[in-house]
């Protein structure tokens, strides 16, 4: 036996690799800088360790639920949809959602246009409305290929866009953030907003996917 636990339960396999500790890799320059600045700000009383922790917790707790509620409302209320397409932050306030200070715009999918969002320079993303970006959104492959061959990227996400539809790629590299207002799925006539919101996923608000089908 190479390790001594549970040997009498027939747990007799060879040595296996352990999952590496988070600390197994050396800190990168920016990780070290982030820790150092955080510690200095706490030491100087700019904020407390608990405030920093609470902020991280609040950021981690963001989810696509807020964005999904806004999409569902837009599907049920044309006047709200018009306001959402003008200014997402203001429209969010109507639903008691804090979309933050960075201006966010919604782009609408129609029978003729499919929108997809990328930030080629970094990973800009409307976090307050759809949560933290997935790792793939930040990857070099997604950032470079979505502008170069968007239809192939979409196909890899399982999203086939017909040849006669315009694929419109939005590169959010400056001061605004973008979210997709997907089209309301067929077969949802008469559904209420809560049921509709359940069909709205993070990925369909990035534009790499479509809303779930009713009954799926």
């Amino acid at each position, binding site marked *: 036996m190479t390790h001594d636990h549970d040997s009498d339960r027939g747990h007799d396999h060879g040595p296996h690799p352990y999952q590496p500790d988070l600390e197994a890799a050396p800190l990168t320059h920016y990780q070290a800088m982030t820790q150092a600045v955080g510690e200095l700000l706490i030491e100087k009383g700019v904020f407390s360790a608990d405030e920093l922790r609470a902020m991280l917790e609040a950021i981690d707790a963001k989810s696509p639920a807020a964005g999904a509620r806004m999409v569902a409302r837009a599907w049920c209320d044309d006047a709200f949809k018009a306001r959402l397409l003008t200014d997402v932050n203001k429209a969010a306030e109507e639903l008691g959602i804090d979309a933050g200070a960075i201006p966010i715009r919604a782009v609408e999918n129609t029978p003729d246009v499919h929108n997809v969002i990328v930030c*080629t*320079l970094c990973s800009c993303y409307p976090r307050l409305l759809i949560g933290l970006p997935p790792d793939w959104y930040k990857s070099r492959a997604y950032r470079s290929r979505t*502008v*170069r*061959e*968007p*239809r*192939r990227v979409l196909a890899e996400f399982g999203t086939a866009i017909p*040849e*006669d*539809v*315009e*694929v*419109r*790629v*939005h*590169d*959010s*590299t*400056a*001061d*605004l953030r973008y979210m997709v207002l997907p089209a309301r799925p067929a077969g949802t006539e008469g559904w209420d907003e809560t049921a509709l919101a359940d069909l709205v996923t993070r990925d369909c608000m990035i534009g790499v996917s479509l809303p779930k089908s009713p009954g799926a």
Partner: protein
Amino acid sequence: MTARFSVGDPVRVRAAFPPGHVRTPFFVRGKAGRVTQVLGPYRNPEELAYGRSGEPALPLYRVVFETAELWDGYQGAPQDTTLVDIYENWLEGA
């Protein structure tokens, strides 16, 4: 600062390659597009990045490009487009 360009104006992105923090993606530099929206004044990120004020603010535009004109051998459909937000100091009339 008044915006030099209006919606519908043809523009070309400067084919410049300065060092430092720049928000204009390489793949649109030197390319021709059209203004689809005037987004308003925003502080200059090329200055903000170095702890300066970023003033005067620059007009920011949504510029639409034909995707097929951005890439050699683009495999998508001819009507596909790419929209990028570009500060006025990167645009010239076309």
